[in-house]
């Protein structure tokens, strides 16, 4: 069976097929959560933000000019929503509990400290590199899917991905040296 394209799914949503939106959700929710995590630094907030992103996208779906670019458009909404979240958090700064405490309390994906560190390191990379990693590792390692969202050429995408991986390796190496 052929997997329906984003475009077909968006059309189906317009036709009233709610299930098609669930399919788009399955396809993009992990990516949107990862983009949100870059801002929130904890998974619980990232999950909440991502839910909000999908609700907004649903409400504004008729603003989407080119349904084939649903993924890219969705990531744009996520970035905007993250910006709002960051602003709101800045206002609430006084009330805020130390972020690192919250992070360790809420987010401990596999009780594997190394993995947790890795995710935190990713948040320190430049945005373009983060998005390249997110799209590649969350979109079935399909470079074409990833390119559709990042808007990079094939060679450009590989270049950015490679740079991100090298930078991560360096960061991890430095971290290990610090521990020793």
């Amino acid at each position, binding site marked *: 069976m052929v997997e329906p394209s984003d475009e077909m799914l968006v059309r189906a949503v317009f036709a009233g097929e*709610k299930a098609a939106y669930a399919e788009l959700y399955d396809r993009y929710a*992990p990516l949107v959560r990862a983009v949100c995590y870059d801002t929130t630094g904890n998974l619980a907030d990232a999950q909440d933000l991502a839910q909000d992103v999908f*609700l907004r996208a*649903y409400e504004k779906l008729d603003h989407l000019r080119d349904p084939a670019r649903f993924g890219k458009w969705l990531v744009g909404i996520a970035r905007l929503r993250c910006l709002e979240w960051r602003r709101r958090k800045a206002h609430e700064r006084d009330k805020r509990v130390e972020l690192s405490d919250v992070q360790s309390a809420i987010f401990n994906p*596999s009780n594997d400290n190394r993995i947790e560190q890795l995710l935190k390191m990713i948040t320190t990379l430049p945005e373009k590199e983060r998005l390249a*990693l997110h799209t590649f590792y969350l979109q079935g390692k399909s470079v074409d899917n990833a390119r559709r969202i990042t808007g990079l050429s094939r060679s450009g995408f590989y270049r950015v991905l490679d740079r991100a*991986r090298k930078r991560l390796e360096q960061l991890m190496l430095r971290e290990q040296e610090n521990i020793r």
Partner: protein
Amino acid sequence: MKKTPLDNDLNKAYEAFNQEHNHLRQTLMASLPEHAGRHKQSCRLSRMREFIGANIIKSRITKIAAAAAIIIVAIIIGVNQFRGSIDLVTIAIADISEAMKNVPWMHHINRGFEKGVTEQWIGFETKIHALKWVNGTITFSNIKEHKKYEYDPENNSITIDYAYEDDFPSSPVSFLEDAIKMLEEQGVEIITKETEYNGQIVQLQEISPPETPNKWGESYILRLYIQPDTKLLLAGQVKGTDSNGNTIMDGEITFDYPQTGPADIYDLGVPRDAKIIDN
């Protein structure tokens, strides 16, 4: 790409973003109905028109050689469920697909759609893609040179951007092939006739949903005109009426397959004095 220990770690790390996915999806879907209704009421028809007249044609499905297939898919997705035999259309579309692989240029003109594209050229060998829009916007992409030119009639300006490889249809038939698969899954009923179109004998395929009118009281019929010798699509027509018999859609896309097409954006009628903005 060579797999490294970092790759394994990254795979593990990214699993975190799948946590509670099913529960979160359920929660989200439960909160959608009120919005879904709004979409359904306000957008369905306009999106259908736009689907045929605009977005699809402007998107990379401009692979569109297959506008007719797009219309079929539009009807299937957007309007109704089809049932019945598939063999005839499979053969016909497969034949059209085969024939389209050999054309140097495809050009089509759209009539009767309120939005979107009025005219389109695709040069399959030259990798040139040009569009004229209802609102006067004109785009010209030269994929080999990675240049996309967009004329804005309001400001009399041409903006130059980067044109990506995948903005161009890799094959004129890929969307047709997708359409065939969808048709196979959905089923569709077709009547094939011989008829006259613009003074020549052609094959006419009339496609209409078996459940007519549909649950919104609308009736649609799609007609495809195919040149029997070359197997090229000459035209696609779609007509829709509401429950009162009023026309809600009456569009036609006519195709031709010239040897050459526009060489630059000025060939499409853009004024020479338009201001250039190079991004």
